[in-house]
């Protein structure tokens, strides 16, 4: 099976600071991948490069067989606008700050892009919009404005908006990090519904480890611009091989259950007694 999205030896720099360092990742169609890591590790950058929001300095990226720069050209983007549009038509993205259009109603937020880009008729776009709203549980909010909705509701609308464009791969950039704890659950259940029902490919960046464990096929741990370790969720979270991974997982209070945590910490014999008394 050919990967749907592929990063090969991708390097990305912001000035002198290297964010991604010979980064490699292949995502298979229908796969749900979660990227975890501390801030600055490059996880959001991976998504943004895929979404053509950022250029990259080295290596190659491809989506659905389309390369992000045309052969014979050097990176960063030397693809034409039309080529990039083609790529973008296959990806959707959900942002941490939702980024809904505040001057449009929810309904218009959902139908605007399908009508202008996909050239759907108003009736068809509306029908699809109401379907998606029903799926995220907000059918009654169709004529409200985003500022009348809570953060969790806005994020669910944002997910519906992204789905309205029928992408092949959906990216989630810390979708719940900006939400109040009460609304996080609603958003996560929508994402889970998506993961279970569709064969949509998903790449998720999140700190919600429990959730990641439930829906991912694969979790990748990033550090300093590279994938340090990756694997099936239960394996990675219960028995990480790399010391950096262990360090990261134990530092996040919700990543592991108490028992798992103790088990992992007991591997480092010298520090055990002091730490065990604190957990």
């Amino acid at each position, binding site marked *: 099976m050919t990967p749907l999205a592929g990063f090969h030896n991708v390097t990305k720099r912001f000035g002198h600071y290297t964010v991604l360092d010979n980064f490699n990742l292949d995502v298979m169609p229908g796969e749900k991948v979660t990227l975890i890591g501390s801030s600055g590790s490059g996880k959001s950058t991976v998504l943004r490069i895929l979404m053509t929001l950022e250029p990259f300095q080295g290596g190659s990226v491809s989506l659905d067989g389309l390369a992000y720069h045309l052969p014979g050209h050097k990176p960063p983007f030397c693809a034409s606008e039309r080529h990039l*549009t083609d790529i*973008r038509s296959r990806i959707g993205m959900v*942002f941490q*700050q939702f*980024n809904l259009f505040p*001057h449009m109603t929810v309904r218009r937020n959902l139908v605007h892009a399908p009508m202008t880009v996909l050239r759907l008729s108003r009736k068809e776009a509306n029908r699809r919009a109401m379907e998606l709203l029903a799926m995220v549980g907000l059918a009654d909010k169709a004529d409200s404005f985003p500022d009348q909705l809570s953060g969790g509701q806005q994020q669910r609308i944002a997910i519906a908006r992204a789905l309205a464009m029928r992408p092949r791969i959906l990216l989630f950039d810390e979708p719940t990090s900006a939400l109040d704890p009460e609304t996080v659950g609603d958003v996560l259940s929508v994402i889970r519904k998506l993961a279970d029902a569709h064969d949509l490919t998903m790449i998720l960046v999140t700190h919600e480890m429990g959730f990641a464990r439930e829906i991912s096929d694969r979790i990748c741990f990033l550090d300093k611009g590279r994938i340090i370790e990756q694997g099936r969720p239960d394996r990675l979270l219960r028995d990480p091989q790399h010391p950096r991974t262990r360090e990261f997982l134990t530092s996040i209070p919700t990543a592991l259950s108490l028992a798992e945590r103790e088990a992992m910490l007991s591997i480092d014999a010298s520090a055990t007694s002091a730490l065990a008394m604190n957990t």
Partner: protein
Amino acid sequence: MTGVLSIDTSSNWAFALSAIPILLHGLVVTVAAASLGFTLALVVGLLFVILRRSRSWLITWPLACFLEFIRDTPLLIQLFFLYYVLPSYGITLPAFLTGAAAIGLQYGAYMAEIYRAGIEAIGRGQWEASVALNLGRRTVYRDVIIPQAIPRIIPALGNCLVSILKETPILYTVSVLEMLNYAIIIGDRTYQYTIPLTLAGALMLIMTTICAYLVRWVELIVPRRGIPLR
């Protein structure tokens, strides 16, 4: 019109009352010139800001210098420049239009800044969401950016309008028959400058106040649902 000046100098009040209609006649010209100048500025400013966003630095750099030049030099000199220089290139415009053009040019430069600030005030997230939805450039500007920018810049544009109104009497220097010109003419005839000039000032004050209320009214009319204005 100047041949029909009938000014009663019997008393101050009679003087004032007979001067007012003449000044109002001039005020119409002042307001007309200001409106034309404002409209020109809106268009010219748009042109400038579109050019400023060009990808080629051969355009943006000289343009930025030119705009700064226009903004930081006196309108009076620019007016004289256009008034005396254009005819030698074959373009003879009536002074009224030259004046409006000069106003349009200088305030267009200011408005380019206002437009730019309005667009940049819109968070990057809106642009990124537009990319994620694969919206074309024109669509993004038309449906996402401009509807959000307009309510934000209306106060600044309104300020420009009031400033233009106050600067229009400068056209007196190129012999446009507007309000100040009439006030000076009355003064020259009667050697009484105080009353006509005071009346001209008062009329201008009334006009700018009306203008300010007009701008506030426009602010309320423009659809600004959901757009954070601060």
